[in-house]
């Protein structure tokens, strides 16, 4: 229709993706210089004799799966409530425990139906806990971080409790298929699950108005309410959706290892998920959001981690380097720095204009 108008608007609309894209690009270039073969993907056979893809690229995509899924949900909560859920790791541990508990109830034999039942059960439990967090936020107007501090404090203990103080293991080809590879498909299953979740969210935004409602509530709750939007319901819904994300992430985490360890499962992932949202250019104060930004942010974080591992940085030290990169990224995106940069470019432009003006005269 009006092409030029659309384009101009479109470009600025995606400017928030600049930071994560630059981060990923820098990491890619850095790694290619360091080791040109860094991103090469090879096909090998695993223990079961199935062909599987291998390489750093795959381990980045695969390793980031839980983080990507959680950051998707975190984006919604952040946008609608203007705060973050710090209990996602704990909730994933609870969901994982429930998952294992159901699998164990089968008495050794794990049928596909049981796995499905376990997944549905852990989804349901996670949704209930999500609704608990959400109702504190939506009905009592408690800041998300405070409200979820409760579950953060006791979530992992609840997970421990569910399994009666043990760290049970489960082994089954089905669990193996969920956590690593489905026989015959060389792509790690967690990547496929991420694609599935991404697709589900895309459908959700395409065929419902959830995105618009969440943004409206996050920007101006009062106005949203006066336009007939159920603001309390939307906030609650965002937490419930995040609950589902936690369940999926917990299930992947459990399936990878074949056991549930309430202490270590997805430990500290809440911090990374919030970080992914922020690096993705989303305002942590709520309002407009781009889920793809958070996804890119999550992959950037994982790429950084894998890069550091490849550089033989011990896994415990990775955090320190990560911190430096984070600070650089956020300083780049800070309003004050942006303003200063704007002023600088304006001054240069003005200088150039006056130069050309002089020449013309």
């Amino acid at each position, binding site marked *: 229709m009006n092409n030029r108008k659309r384009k101009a608007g479109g470009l600025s609309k995606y400017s928030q993706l600049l930071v994560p894209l630059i981060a990923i690009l820098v990491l890619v270039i850095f790694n290619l210089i360091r080791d040109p073969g860094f991103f090469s993907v090879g096909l090998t056979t695993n223990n079961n004799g199935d062909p599987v893809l291998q390489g750093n690229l795959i381990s980045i995509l695969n390793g980031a799966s839980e983080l990507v899924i959680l950051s998707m949900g975190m984006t919604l909560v952040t946008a609608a409530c203007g705060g973050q859920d710090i209990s996602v790791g704990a909730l994933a541990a609870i969901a994982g425990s429930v998952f294992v508990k159901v699998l164990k109830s089968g008495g050794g034999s794990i049928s596909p139906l049981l796995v499905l039942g376990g997944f549905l059960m852990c989804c349901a439990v996670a949704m209930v806990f999500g609704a608990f967090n959400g109702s504190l936020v939506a009905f009592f107007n408690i800041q998300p971080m405070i409200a979820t501090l409760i579950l953060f404090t006791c979530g992992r203990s609840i997970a421990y409790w569910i399994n009666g103080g043990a760290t049970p293991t489960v082994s089954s080809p089905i669990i193996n298929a969920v956590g690593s590879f489905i026989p015959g498909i060389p792509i790690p299953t967690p990547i496929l699950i991420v694609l599935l979740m991404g697709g589900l969210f895309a459908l959700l935004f395409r065929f419902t108005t959830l995105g618009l409602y969440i943004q409206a509530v996050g920007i101006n709750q009062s106005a949203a309410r*006066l*336009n007939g939007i159920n603001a309390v319901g939307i906030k609650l819904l965002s937490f419930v959706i995040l609950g589902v994300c936690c369940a999926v992430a917990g299930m992947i985490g459990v399936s990878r290892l074949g056991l549930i360890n309430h202490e270590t499962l997805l430990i500290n992932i809440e911090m990374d998920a919030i970080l992914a949202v922020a690096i993705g250019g989303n305002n942590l104060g709520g309002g407009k959001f781009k889920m793809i930004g958070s996804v890119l942010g999550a992959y950037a974080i994982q790429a950084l981690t894998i890069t550091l591992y490849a550089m033989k940085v011990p896994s415990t030290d990775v955090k320190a380097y990560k911190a430096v990169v984070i600070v650089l990224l956020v300083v780049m995106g800070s309003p004050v720095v942006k303003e200063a940069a704007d002023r600088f470019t304006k001054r240069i432009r003005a200088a150039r204009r006056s130069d050309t003006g002089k020449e013309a005269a």
Partner: protein
Amino acid sequence: MKEDIVLTMRGICKVFPGVMALNGVDFTLRKGEIHALMGENGAGKSTLIKVLTGVYPKDAGEIRVDGVDEAITIRSPQEAQSYGISTVYQEISLCPNLTVAENMFIGRTRGGTVNWKAMEKRAGELLDSLGIPARPRQQLSNCSLAVQQMVAIARAVDTECKVLILDEPTSSLDDKEVEMLFRLMRDLKARGVGIIFVTHFLEQVYEVSDRITVLRNGELVGEYEVEKLPQVQLVAMMIGRELENLSVIRKENPAGAAKKEVRYEARQLSSTESRPFDFYIGKGEVNGFTGLLGSGRSESVRAIFGADPVTGGEVKMEGKKARITKPLDAMKNGIGYLPEDRKRDGIIADLSVRDNIILALQVLRGMGHPISRAKAEAFADEYIKALGIKTASTDTPIGSLSGGNQQKVILARWLLTHPKYLILDEPTRGIDVGTKTEIQKLVLKLAEEGMSVTFISSEIEEMLRTCSRLIVMRDRNIVGELTGDELTQSHVMHTIAGGGGDSE
């Protein structure tokens, strides 16, 4: 003569992107006078005040104050204070979590420590001497808005101030409190303080001020002695050449007056914020709620729309019983509501003009039926054209539009739902005169097409021009209903004030 002058502003200019907010404005303030700064919304009053207090840097012109030999530059409110210029803003800029005494002294005491006893004693004395019903140790948020305003004034007064700026100080005060404030202002005047008084209320200007400076569209209209400027002339100056435009509307006034078919009817409707009241509106009728601020006029229409929790009453829509307890119910019944506070309740600032326009229609269609991008674009384009909304594109965030255009977008949002009954609460507040008349004309046009419209405005003139029936409220009760010949300014005023007209 010259020693009398405490403040001179010469040729002040201030440009905002796309707007000349102030164009060569002069202003002079004498010692011990109350000087009213008048003008319609958007005339440049607040911009001038903000330049004077260092909130905005000026783009041209010079400011001189008594006691300083050269022209001064004011970069911050603190710097303004150091020159003896204190301000009390319309939106109270105090900290609600601190005590009254602290709010009076924070940011202006010397030394690194706080002497609570001395501070509270001094605050107590000051509050007593000004007759402010607050205690020094009380938390500010526990005081009424009026008292908070008084505390802000007490703070300003206590600094060694030569120039006191009161920006709409009376808008949240009742008569008694206004009288108290005026006593205080006269007292300060006697002490030699120059007071700049910004207000909308004409009567208050004539009651308390010595001189008036009138601004219009960012330009100086003139400076006058109060005695030499009749009220009518003042209004004419403020509204200026737009007067002609307005008279055109007046002719169309009878629109809809004759149609009698009832569209909406409420019996003993009440909400948590409003007392029970009866109300009806006919098809194609334009009626209005009027009354002073806080009389319950906004609360009543909010109850109709279900904006506050409804506590009782019966509602009929076109003769059929309806249940309206929340905004969505009202919308489903074909009611639209343009809220009083555009920023707080109307716009969704970061969303695009397009999303803001389609929002209400989208909600009505339900979560599972999103409006396609192409359709939304078409709707937005249609209404941008129809209402003459000035925006760079449909993608522009509504927050970056001017007040008038924002209001038009909200109006477009409701028109898109094709409501049978539209409630407009202060649709013309804070927008330029041109847009005002446009909106008034639109209201009359819509009524002619059969829409029912309830209109609220704090400017009675505006209501008289558009409404065929006025419901008058006082102290949260309906005290009168005026139609036909009763629709004159004096009649309305009398009814509002009580004891006059035919009511009671």
